[in-house]
């Protein structure tokens, strides 16, 4: 039987980005906080040090920083008519594991969503009329506005020290920034990163077509910075090992570099690693949580009573935690009823490869995960969609993230897939190719959802999460459109061969896109179509908050971490200033 531990005020299920921020802040108010992290303790020193961290095979290919799917996998199918089978290896995406979570191995791209994203259905119907949006897309408003989130975006960017150039400060468009972005209250905390060659080539090509290039917003820092927590970050050295790696230089914002050291100094904060939370416990009414049950690394089971439970795991694991804890009504894709598992979305990525002659030396390995140049002209609703037959879009960028050759060895169309022709093409093109990214929005549709697998179990005997996903036709049409635009930029960049590869159905779980899984425990103002209210509080169990990209009703054209950070501070504000003063539902059902 589980040993019952001494009660605490707050427990966080997971100590990644969201758990670290909330744990630190709530412990600072004098509450007793326990952070439960399933993976190991790890820190910049000694765990992320050079040269061992620059090991592509271990980290990028064997995925040493990713959730251990020997113990805990997920199942996948393209549609509800198929039998889901385990994703036996992580190939399509990489859920993090260990202290700091996926915010250790992220690239550092720190975007804001557009003001229109938060009032998505209202905005699109207002601009294009009812009936413009495909009827199978279950998009809806978020219940929060950009203006409400702006101070929290700002706080998160200043926590990270994000490098960039503002394009809009308090409604005034700024030269050199993104003219399409929502208004910011002030400039980025640090100046833009240096522009690598691939970024400069892209800038020139994009400008020649009348587009609006600007430096990619990067939490891999352009200059030394001390954040409001008093923690210092170094200047990024463009080593080319961000994505799938941890930063050795204290130059990439991560929980370890920007917030955890403060939490760990506070005696009211206790971190426990190696602790796998099995479920959030409920009392006999089913409307109040009494804490959580977890198993430690040695296999011992504990009950940790807590007044407030914050589910702060990776987005997909947040949803699984709700389902395994029987919190909220599971979504049924046949009837469209229920909320937990609803509006699962991902990202719609595509690429255009720009092949140059050998006198153009790109040096793709001189990079950070977030360095480069980008245009926002075809993202979200920044362009008129009338007559195009789709909604959404993509930012288009030259952000190459490094030239690690097991995974990066581009060859032009028509190259043999192995043998002498392949080898010579790799040697010929490796250092003379720029790959442009189209980072496309992903819209929820009725059949795309998350639930518990009826067959497959994890090492603790609990059902795996079942992911059902394919690209909506809307998103396939969008991908063709934006990829064409990227090909046009590639030609303007002077590429001798430009090869575009738009995203097509079916979604293939063996091909990496991003780790930007969203939805499943979405926020909103209607408890029949959302699992959490606008403050990320469970509609059903008010002393449970579910924090992360699981709250997104759709996924926008941008990397999601900036919005995860903003929503975390938004939820924190509601917990600190409203919930703790009068525990209970912050929005009446």
């Amino acid at each position, binding site marked *: 039987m589980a040993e019952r531990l001494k009660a605490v005020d707050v427990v966080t299920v997971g100590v990644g980005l969201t758990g670290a921020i909330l744990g630190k802040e709530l412990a600072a108010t004098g509450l007793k906080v326990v952070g439960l992290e399933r993976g190991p303790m790890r820190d910049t020193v000694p765990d992320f040090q050079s040269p061992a961290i620059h090991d592509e095979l271990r980290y990028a*290919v064997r995925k040493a920083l990713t959730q251990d799917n020997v113990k805990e996998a997920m199942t996948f199918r393209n549609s509800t008519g198929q039998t889901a089978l*385990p994703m036996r290896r992580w190939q399509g995406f990489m859920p993090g594991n260990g202290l700091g979570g996926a915010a250790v191995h992220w690239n550092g791209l720190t975007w804001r969503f557009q003001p229109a994203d938060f009032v998505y259905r209202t905005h699109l119907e207002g601009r294009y009329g009812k009936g413009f949006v495909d009827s199978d897309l279950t998009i809806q408003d978020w219940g929060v506005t950009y203006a409400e989130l702006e101070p929290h975006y700002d706080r998160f960017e200043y926590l990270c020290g994000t490098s960039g150039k503002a394009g809009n400060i308090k409604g005034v468009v700024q030269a050199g920034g993104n003219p399409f972005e929502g208004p910011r209250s002030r400039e980025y905390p640090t100046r833009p990163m240096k522009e690598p060659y691939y970024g400069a080539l892209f800038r020139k090509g994009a400008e020649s077509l009348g587009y609006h290039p600007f430096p990619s917003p990067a939490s891999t820092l352009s200059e030394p910075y001390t954040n409001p927590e008093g923690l210092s970050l170094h200047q990024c050295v463009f080593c080319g090992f961000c994505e799938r790696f941890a930063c050795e230089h204290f130059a990439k914002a991560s929980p370890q570099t920007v917030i955890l050291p403060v939490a760990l100094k506070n005696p009211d904060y206790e971190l426990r690693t190696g602790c796998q939370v099995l479920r959030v416990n409920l009392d006999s009414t089913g409307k109040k949580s009494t804490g959580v049950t977890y198993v430690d690394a040695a296999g011992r089971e504990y009950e940790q009573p807590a007044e407030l439970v914050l589910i702060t795991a990776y987005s997909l694991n947040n949803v699984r935690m709700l389902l395994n804890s029987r919190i909220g009504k599971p979504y049924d894709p046949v009837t469209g009823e229920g909320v937990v598992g609803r509006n699962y979305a991902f990202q719609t990525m595509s690429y255009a490869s720009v092949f140059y002659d050998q006198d153009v*030396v790109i040096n793709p390995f001189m990079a950070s995960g977030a360095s480069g140049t980008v245009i926002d002209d075809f993202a979200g609703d920044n362009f008129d969609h009338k007559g195009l037959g789709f909604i959404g879009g993509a930012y288009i960028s030259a952000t190459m993230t490094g030239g690690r050759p097991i995974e990066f060895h581009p060859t032009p169309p028509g190259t043999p897939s192995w043998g002498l022709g392949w080898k010579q093409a790799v040697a010929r093109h490796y250092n003379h190719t720029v790959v442009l990214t189209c980072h496309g929005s992903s819209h929820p549709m009725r059949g795309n959802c998350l639930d518990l697998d009826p067959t497959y179990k994890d090492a603790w005997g609990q059902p795996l999460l079942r992911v059902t996903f394919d690209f909506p036709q809307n998103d396939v049409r969008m991908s063709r459109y934006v990829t064409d635009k990227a090909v046009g930029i590639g030609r303007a960049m002077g590429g001798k061969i430009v090869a575009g590869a738009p995203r097509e159905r079916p979604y293939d779980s063996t091909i990496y896109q991003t780790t930007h899984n969203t939805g499943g425990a979405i926020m909103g103002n209607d408890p029949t179509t959302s699992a959490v209210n606008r403050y990320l509080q469970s509609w059903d169990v008010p002393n449970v908050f579910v924090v992360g990209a699981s709250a997104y009703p759709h996924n926008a054209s941008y990397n999601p971490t900036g919005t995860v950070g903003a929503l975390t501070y938004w939820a924190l504000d509601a917990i600190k200033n409203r919930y703790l003063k009068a525990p209970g539902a912050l929005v009446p059902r």
Partner: protein
Amino acid sequence: MSRLSRRDVVTATGAAAAAALAIAPPEAAAQQAPPAAQPTVYLFFNTDEVAFIEAALSRLIPADDQWPGALEAGVANFIDKELNGAWGAGERLYRSGPWQPGTPSQGYQLPFTPAELFRTALAAITKELARAGTPFAKMSGEQQDAYLRSLEAGAADLGGVPSDVFFAHLWDAPVEGFFSDPVYGGNRDMMAWKMIGFPGAYASYYEVVDQHGMKLDRAPTSLAEDSHGHVHVQPVIPAGQR
């Protein structure tokens, strides 16, 4: 085009880069002659398997007049050590049943670990070709390519392993071994990195990232180089080639 000197990097980027460079002086690496190849010590593959793998590597990533191929780069050794270790035993592979074939978009669905998969498929290939009369290693290059293409097309069942699934593993392994750090026993003398111009595990390009189009004309560096430019292969993974 500018040239990146060691002093530039040390001066520009401070302690972290200097520490990395202290163990990897490029002059030493560049001047050092490649050590003569010795026979690979195989820990996993048996004699029949070695004959197939070595011959297949010579076709998958062949040598040419400019650059060695996968075999010369020690990739057979890399694959042998990977299959003999945690990866071969199913590291990071969800192994619970039930087992059933899926769609291509659902990925690998066989109960075999990588070690079991190679052993099973290679035994079936050896048996089939013995019956047909010519082992793979004795075929002409053209015949070998045609046989590899037939595996890739997925026509055969190799003891329960569809031949296209085996081919996918047979192709992933040399790409990994050719381009991974030489500490794992392939990419000998960082020859694959030299071929493409990847500098390896350097710590910093801060001072040169905005010198657009520069040619970085220095030898690559490994995770395991000492101050004499020697790559020390992990002792528990005997590479057998040094």
